[in-house]
């Protein structure tokens, strides 16, 4: 069931809802065009996971790691990895630098932007994908699955 995001507060609320159900080891893939709201979603998700640092674009260095808030330990989450496959042409490039080790750490939640560039992600049982699209005016439409 696609969800319509009308305001920035809607996005925050949506990210928070997703964050509440996350556990260590979970992987979230975000799919959508430039400006569709993937980074904004990630910033709110990180906030909900107690990350205090700015979530900067990982486009140039592929991924950045952040410490999760101390109260997330009970859910087995110590770290958030924010990855970005925008510049990936062939997914083997990521596997060859040890990406698999990073995203399969049991205490890590991973968010991958441009996840459609990594078809193998769908083979991970801990993977869920969210599609970001544009609605009327400034609305965004997010569908999960």
């Amino acid at each position: 069931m696609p969800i319509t995001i009308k305001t920035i507060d809607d996005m925050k609320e949506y990210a928070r809802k997703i964050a509440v159900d996350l556990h260590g080891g979970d992987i979230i893939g975000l799919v959508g065009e430039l400006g569709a709201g993937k980074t904004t979603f990630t910033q709110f998700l990180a906030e909900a996971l107690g990350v205090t640092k700015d979530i900067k674009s990982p486009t140039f260095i592929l991924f950045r790691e952040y410490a999760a808030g101390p109260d997330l330990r009970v859910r087995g989450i110590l770290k958030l990895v924010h990855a970005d496959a925008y510049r990936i042409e062939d997914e083997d490039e990521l596997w060859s630098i040890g990406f698999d080790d990073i995203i399969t750490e049991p205490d890590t939640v991973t968010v991958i932007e441009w996840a459609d560039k990594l078809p193998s992600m769908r083979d991970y049982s801990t993977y869920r994908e969210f599609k970001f699209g544009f609605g009327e005016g400034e609305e965004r439409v997010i569908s999960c699955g």
Partner: protein
Amino acid sequence: MRILGIESSCDDSAVAYLEVKRGKVARLEYVVASQVIHEKYGGVVPEVAAREHSAKIPPILDALAEKVIGKPDGRAFGEIVDAVAATAGPGLVTSLRVGLDTGRALAAAWDKDFYAINHIEGHIYSNWLPGEKGKAKLDESSDIFPAIALVVSGGHTELLLMKGHGQYKLLGATADDAAGEAFDKSAKLMGLGYPGGPAISNLAKGGDPSAYDFPRPLLNSDDLRFSFSGLKTAVRYFLRDNEDRFDEKKFLPDVAASTEQAIVDVLVAKAVSAAKKNGVRTVLLAGGVAANPKLRATLAAELKKHVPKVRFVEPELVHCTDNAGMIAMAAYHQSQLRKPDDWRKIEADPLWELGR
């Protein structure tokens, strides 16, 4: 002092030979191999980049030796070098490792001092490098501190306070996308090529920078943080809502000029504010986006208007993009401040933050 510099943090493989005598540049030779391959992909492809660095660094080292000593002879080249310097971060880890390991191996084989250099610090020291002709604007005796450095590139947007050589305090950085990334991604939305900065800048020459009012996030915030991710969204909506105007001759040039103006306005406002707040003597511009003519001209004019006593220094155009001369120059200044690094203990640090 004679330094071999190596830079491979992103998509350019670069080596340089720098000779400093009594604090002034006596000789600078450099060879850069740009990875044209990335234009096809619209950006840097990590594994391709690392493979390209591995393939290119040995031949460009030979070419450099030939320039400096007249023959591609590594052993003879090693005899005239006092120190080897290589970029250790920040950057793409696979790319960094190639240049760093080459530098470490040469320092070990030649038994020379080794310096691991921060890429951002390197960019700042591009201001001490001479152009193709003539002298460098700055040398060791230049009395410029305290200074503000605005470092802007595809991966970075940072304002740093320098109280002296090698002393950095991070005043502000981007909260999301880098300024160069804003250029790249906006260019992509407009259907222009990579890298986006020069593409937008060229198109903007025929456009009106005040035609459209794109957002300037955090322009009036009290702090020195930047945010550029909202700009691409604004550009996307604007293009979507004006699809029927793409054929108008002035349309895209106006969009390009207005986008460039929005990015430049924020960079300039924050740099001027940092200069004012910190009572500095100098503002240094650095990084790939420092080649943008609009940014250079606007920053010079606004500094003159608001802090007329502050000296503005911009790097030679040829040294704005990633190069190894800047790494060698940063290493020279590091060598005046501290002991060399132990090559056995150095590792690439993709997230190395300067001044934190």
